[in-house]
């Protein structure tokens, strides 16, 4: 057991810190807040990704031959944590960088790699994912969007929901049913779909927070060339599942830092609101601190295991359960500390931190639903980790 960074890990971290010091404007958030319009904001973020790419920091986990730097899992964690710690902007091409890119590297043809990978890294092309459907959420394999072969094209019809970055995306990693007669996990195929194709309709999906972070995608007779199949036809479940496992295992690293920074802020607030001397508040804060530490340590153990040659497996559900439920408890605690001020939203002169806490409180409800509900995660642990019979 050695939690010190190795010399090469230290070198990686210091290099990144230096690059961030040189390239990340300390007042970028103020600049960003002044930009009007979603599209213009997005272009700002895309320019940031381009900068990251030019600095050689995009897609660090990708093999060198595809433009990455073959970073170890520990380096990936360092990267995520450092970016979060520096408060750097999100990379708008995150889905391409973390999910579509790696899946393409594993399953793609040479032509696909040639066509897509470089542009994913640079942010020139943005990707989204079309997985969930109105009737295929927890039961993803029940999806009904169909693709039927018509000469050298698939004709796609159906609907997807909960698509992040759908409105901004140039391409979509889309899971469709190509064999309606096969058992439900068979007969699926992954298609790489040009979002500018005729018949693709992107609509905003408004969440309970009031924001439209997600989209619904509608496909009406959309023609996709057969060369855009990723992996093999009717092998889409195996192609997609790797993406999902990866999502569950790695989503936590950034969140850990985000929660930790929020926690530090709430300690500050408790002090400035005169509540830090209150024993009840101290207990709540300390318990939350302990939970955050445990989450961090669980993640470090999991990443170390993966670094020792494992791939993300079903035990990633432990991380997913932990961070999602912790964030909900944390947001509740923050509300309790802020008292009636906690409910005030963006734009009120009385709100704390311009109402971000209120937004975070609502947004956290989604944590135990997105990327697999807590119920599904527990049943995954029961069945795939503990070896109990399947129960759904």
């Amino acid at each position, binding site marked *: 057991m050695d939690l010190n960074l190795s010399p090469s890990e230290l070198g990686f971290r210091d290099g990144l810190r230096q690059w961030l010091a040189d390239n990340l404007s300390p007042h970028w958030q103020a600049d960003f807040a002044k930009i009007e319009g979603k599209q213009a904001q997005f272009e700002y973020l895309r320019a940031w990704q381009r900068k990251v790419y030019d600095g050689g920091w995009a897609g660090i986990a990708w093999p060198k031959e595809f433009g990455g730097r073959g970073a170890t899992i520990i380096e990936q964690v360092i990267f995520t944590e450092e970016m979060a710690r520096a408060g750097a902007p999100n990379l708008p091409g995150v889905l391409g960088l973390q999910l579509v890119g790696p899946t393409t590297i594993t399953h793609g043809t040479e032509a696909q790699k040639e066509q897509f990978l470089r542009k994913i890294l640079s942010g020139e092309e943005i990707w989204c994912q079309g997985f*969930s459907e109105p*009737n*295929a*959420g*927890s*039961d993803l394999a*029940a999806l009904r969007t169909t693709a039927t072969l018509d000469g050298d094209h698939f004709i796609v019809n159906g609907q997807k*929901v*909960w698509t992040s970055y759908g409105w901004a995306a140039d391409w979509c990693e889309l899971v469709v049913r190509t064999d309606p007669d096969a058992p439900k996990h068979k007969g699926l195929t992954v298609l790489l779909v040009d979002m500018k194709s005729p018949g693709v309709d992107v609509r905003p*999906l*408004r*969440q*309970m927070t*009031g924001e439209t972070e997600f989209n619904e995608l509608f496909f009406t007779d959309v023609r996709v060339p057969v060369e855009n199949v990723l992996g093999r036809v009717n092998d889409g479940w195996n192609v997609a599942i790797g993406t999902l496992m990866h999502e569950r295992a790695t989503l936590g690293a950034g969140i850990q830092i985000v929660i930790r920074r929020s926690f530090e802020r709430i300690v500050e607030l408790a002090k400035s609101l*005169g509540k830090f001397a209150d024993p*009840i508040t101290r207990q709540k804060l300390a318990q939350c601190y302990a939970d955050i530490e445990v989450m961090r340590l669980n993640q470090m153990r999991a990443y170390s295991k993966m670094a020792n040659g494992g791939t993300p497996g079903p035990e990633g559900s432990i991380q997913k359960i932990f961070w999602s439920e912790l964030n*909900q408890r944390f947001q*509740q605690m923050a*509300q*309790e500390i802020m*008292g*009636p*001020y*906690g*409910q*005030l*939203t*963006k*734009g*009120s*002169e*009385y*709100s704390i931190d311009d109402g971000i806490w*209120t937004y975070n*409180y*609502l947004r956290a*409800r*989604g944590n*135990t*639903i*997105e990327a697999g*509900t*807590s*119920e599904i995660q*527990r*049943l995954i642990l029961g069945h795939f980790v503990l070896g109990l019979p399947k*129960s*759904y």
Partner: protein
Amino acid sequence: MQFGLTDSQVLTRNSAREFFSAEYPIAEVRRLCETETAHDRKLWRKTAEQGWCGMTIPEAYGGMGLDLVEVAAAMEEAGRTLVPGPLLAHLTATAAIAACASEEHKQRLLPALATGERIATFAVLEPNPSWDLAAVAMPACEGAKLFVMDAAVTDYIVTLTRDGVFLVDSRGDGVTLTPMPALDTSRKLSAVHYQSAPGLQLATDNNAVQRALDIGTTLLCAEMTGAMQRMLDITVNYVKTRKQFGKPVGAFQLVQALCADMLVATESARSATYFAAYALEQNLPEAQSAVSVAKSYIADAARLTGNNAIQAHGGMGFTWENDIHLYYRRAKAFETAFGDAVFHRERIAQLAL
């Protein structure tokens, strides 16, 4: 002994259910939430015509003079349909006036409040917010009151000061209102700034309105009980029809447990609320602690119910389109209004242990 509504209480509840569900369909509630005040004059007038605005005012002053169990039953129905606007604040403020004003002032003020012609709210919290009446620090009537419910649509603000209870004209000289936009958009909050504001002194001691605040707390609990029932009903209905893995999601044990816990929480909230109303009505010695029991229990129970409702819906529960979040937002506001769970537990420790 009979822990249940009497025939006349059932009658009140049924007519409240009929009225509120007919006049406040959820589409209308959503529309009002998007407005600046969440208040519609026509709807208010209709509501007033049925007498609902005068529920806590004695008949002698033109109110309905209902017993508090009846008022709670009516407010449970109002909560079920998420009635927006100043009803709760008005009932609390009028109860306060009825409790502490002189006979002359009551005769002058209450009739127009009973008919809904005039609307009142109340102001307790200050920048360092506390529901402990001993902590009220603002002199009369100079300074700031925060988190005042629906102040923008009222005529009067029953204002607690360190010099006692004052009735202040909401639109009068020396009174400035600033909106405090918050999570629950069905009931708008304001900051009220008083600058040498003229006020009519109703009482010299704030304790004269403690009972009215307890009534307000209980009615808020009643509203929330109705909201919890509605979240449960919506959820049960959804999980019966939503299918995953070839069956209704309601057939999965983990989803059933979410619903069962909502049921336990909702029924318990109802028991606690009705007892609080009864204890206040009967002036039982344990009335105040009964109110704090209800408020502290429901703060947690309502959050659990809201959380489970969203969770049992899956992704659909996280959408704007689904009504659950409207109730969820109100549950959030509920937690701190009239004192949070920590406040009421400390009050229980002082009163009952």
